[in-house]
């Protein structure tokens, strides 16, 4: 029987090793898999490369993982945090590496990685500092740069509903990077608000087919990052 449901959050992330690359879902707090990130902090993996649109907020979730010194490199489009100096201070101190990628290129690189496309050309960033060192090429009179597909060892993603096959439905804009990150990871780990029986998610409404998901864990009442930040909470 296919059953991707894990009994606990720690069990779902236990084999993330030092040096792993993690795709972490979320745009701002929407879709941020905060419980999974905290479990990675507890679990102890170091020297991580993290792919996320941002660099975390306050002192919880991704910002806490960075503050704990576990992240060697961040690949993201907008590493300015709200209510957080964590990334900025480590970056200025030369203690964390940054690969800055335009947001749409980041999304497309992840989607390409998941789709078996090793590289593609895009008009984004042509003629800018972010195109430096990249191959440039003209198609039909317009200039493009070559970008590489991006894959990772793990994805940490938050979804709304899932069945034991790993079929996912999301909530509103919390969908953001979730579907493509599940595609691009060797092991996609998903925290869901509600586990449902197979068939309860209409086959027409499955956003991420289960084939892209390896592990599920139910988190019925996930922490709300903005509330934690407003309270000045920190993790651990």
């Amino acid at each position: 029987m296919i059953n991707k449901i894990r009994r606990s959050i720690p069990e779902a992330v236990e084999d993330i090793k030092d040096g792993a690359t993690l795709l972490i879902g979320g745009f701002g707090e929407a879709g941020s898999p905060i419980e999974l990130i905290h479990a990675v902090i507890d679990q102890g993996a170091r020297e991580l490369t993290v792919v996320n649109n941002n660099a975390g907020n306050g002192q919880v979730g991704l910002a806490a993982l960075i503050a704990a010194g576990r992240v060697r490199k961040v690949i993201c489009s907008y590493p300015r945090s709200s209510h957080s100096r964590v990334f900025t201070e480590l970056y200025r101190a030369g203690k964390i590496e940054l690969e800055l990628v335009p947001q749409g290129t980041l999304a497309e690189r992840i989607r390409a990685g998941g789709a078996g496309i090793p590289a593609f050309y895009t008009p984004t960033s042509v003629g800018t500092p972010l195109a430096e060192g990249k191959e440039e090429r003209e198609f039909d009179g317009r200039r493009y740069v070559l970008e590489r597909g991006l894959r990772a060892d793990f994805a940490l993603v938050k979804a709304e509903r899932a069945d034991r096959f790993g079929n996912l439905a999301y909530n509103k804009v919390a969908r953001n990077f979730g579907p493509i990150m599940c595609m691009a990871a060797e092991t996609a780990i998903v925290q869901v608000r509600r586990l449902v029986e197979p068939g309860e998610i209409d086959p027409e409404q499955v956003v991420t087919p289960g084939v892209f998901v390896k592990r599920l864990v139910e988190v019925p009442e996930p922490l709300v990052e903005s509330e934690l930040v407003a309270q000045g909470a920190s993790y651990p």
Partner: protein
Amino acid sequence: MSETQAKRLGLSRKQMAWRAAQDLQDGAVVNLGIGMPELVASYVPDGRELLYHSENGLLGFGPPPPAGQEDPELINAGKKPVTLLPGASFFHHADSFAMIRGGHIDVCILGAMQVAANGDIANWSTGAADAVPAVGGAMDLVAGARAIWVLSEHTTRDGAPKLVEQCSYPLTGQGVVRRIYSNLGLIEVSETGFRLLEIAPGISVEELRALTGAPLEVPDSLPQIDAPEL
């Protein structure tokens, strides 16, 4: 008259947004950058229906919800709460930028630090050594939207021109800006450089030229922007 008021020339920020809003056609698919461009939505003439796109995977959103009804999973690219209008849709990030890059967004209105006479735009980085660089979706938007309009003060806080011969800040994109809605006028970026289309009340062409860092073509007949009090 307070010092602040005395310093301000031409249109107010709201009037600038109003002027840009007049040019958004019925049915347009529009992406409004974070900050002043967001004001534009408030001044679209009645009877025009626009579809607003947000990079984080949302099309067809409406104004912010009443206080207390915010949903942390219903936000725009500026991470501010929004509402849904009938006909809205959600999609993932790669699809969202496929819309942008694939030319499916009619107009994107952005702020800018500098715009050059050839349409180059700089709006993401001062290039300062100690700054943490951050680009977001700006480079994708300028490369992909069918029309890029800049909504910006004509000069920096220090009075330096933002419309320049050549950008000194790191570029966001090359040759992409079509129009600039500033507090002093409406400027088109043409094949030959900046071209003034309309001028704000209380400003002379000479004053405007003095505050512009590149040659400005001025037509014989120059309409004045007739904005309401805002």
